[in-house]
């Protein structure tokens, strides 16, 4: 297998965590309560920490001397390979919780599987991330149940968010050529095998939250191939502003 393929696969893992972590960071100082502000910031830190481990490894695989910072701050949107769901805007707290829940449930399955990867570096990072993702999922599931099974207003908001975001979930679970290549090499999991476990996990929480599972649908854009919604560019503009304006700045 080419190291280019592995590099790109590791970037997918890195970018989903990085982009989602940056999104959650936008909540700092704005969450509905101090406890939730802290929780979202804590989860953001975990995600960015995971992204750093993946990015450092990606830089080594590429072998062109790019550091984790260079990969995070000096790539443009088409060179990011995060799943499209991660870059969707925060909207309200319920919307953020739905996005977080759908990705947490997926990352938990993904990291559990990756812990057994033939790529020992990926297996090590994933084994560490699993522990963190477990309590991320407890947090997002707890809130989804509270909001879904809450008032008419909270139920309506998360129902709307679920309907809006569900179409992005197909990308998480549908393998493309690179996913299949990695699964064949024992590096990445088979997404087809992940799908039923994810659906079961998500379905159980949706039931408890009294939310209906939206009908299957597909979104035409594919973040993991570098094709993004306009939201990512705006997010990167903010995230990358400082290191691009002042190259080499340290603080």
């Amino acid at each position, binding site marked *: 297998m080419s190291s280019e393929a592995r590099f790109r696969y590791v970037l997918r893992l890195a970018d989903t965590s990085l982009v989602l972590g940056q999104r959650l960071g936008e909540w700092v100082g704005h969450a509905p309560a101090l406890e939730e502000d802290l*929780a979202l910031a*804590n*989860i953001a830190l*975990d995600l*960015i*920490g*995971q992204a*750093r481990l993946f990015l450092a490894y990606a830089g080594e695989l590429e072998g062109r001397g790019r550091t984790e910072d260079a990969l995070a701050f000096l790539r443009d949107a088409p060179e990011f390979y995060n799943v499209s769901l991660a870059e969707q805007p925060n909207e309200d707290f319920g919307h953020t919780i739905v996005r977080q829940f759908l990705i947490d449930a997926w990352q938990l399955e993904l990291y559990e599987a990756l812990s057994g990867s033939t790529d020992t570096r990926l297996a090590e990072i994933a084994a560490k991330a699993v522990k963190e993702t477990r309590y991320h999922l407890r947090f997002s599931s707890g809130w989804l149940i509270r909001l879904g099974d809450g008032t008419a207003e909270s139920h309506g908001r998360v129902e709307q968010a679920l309907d809006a975001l569900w179409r992005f979930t197909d990308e998480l679970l549908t393998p493309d050529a690179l996913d299949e290549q990695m699964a064949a090499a024992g590096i990445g999991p088979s997404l087809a095998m992940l799908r039923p476990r994810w659906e079961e996990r998500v379905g159980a929480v949706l039931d408890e939250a009294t939310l209906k599972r939206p009908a299957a649908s597909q979104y035409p854009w594919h973040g993991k191939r570098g094709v993004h919604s306009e939201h990512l560019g705006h997010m990167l503009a903010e995230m990358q502003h400082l290191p691009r304006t002042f190259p080499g700045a340290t603080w």
Partner: protein
Amino acid sequence: MNGTLAQPPRASAPDPREERVWQVLRSVMDPEIPVLSVIDLGIVRYVRGEAGGLRVGITPTYSGCPATEVIQRSIREALARAGLQETVLETVLSPPWSSEWLTEEGRRKLEAFGIAAPTARAASAVSCPRCGCQDVERVSEFGSTPCKAHYRCHECLEPFDVFKCI
């Protein structure tokens, strides 16, 4: 777990510099919980003196813990002050750090500092570090740092932190 347990089996006698490194490490404190040394935290995986030099293995607690870099810098500075500046720090990810690696002494220091120690996985009772009462409530699984959860005691009514169990 005592950090020394992580030492690999060796054929030759230990390098005398190793004990000095352990001594220095006992004085390097966590910037977020300043009563705990890096040894108390259980993040030092090994100290190895070899012909090539001294190597220290450090494991991060949480992937996103901002204290990790500060701790590494503190360790480097403390070793340099002790004349051990040639020591190489290595990051060890596997197996991932667990709160069970906190030493007994570390747990006692935490409690005395007002932070409830992580409970063993089997027994889940958290008690208030101030009054010892077990009638407590979890306010949030996330606290002021990645390693802490936020609780409240129903007896003395005080809020307190709990070192998370992972």
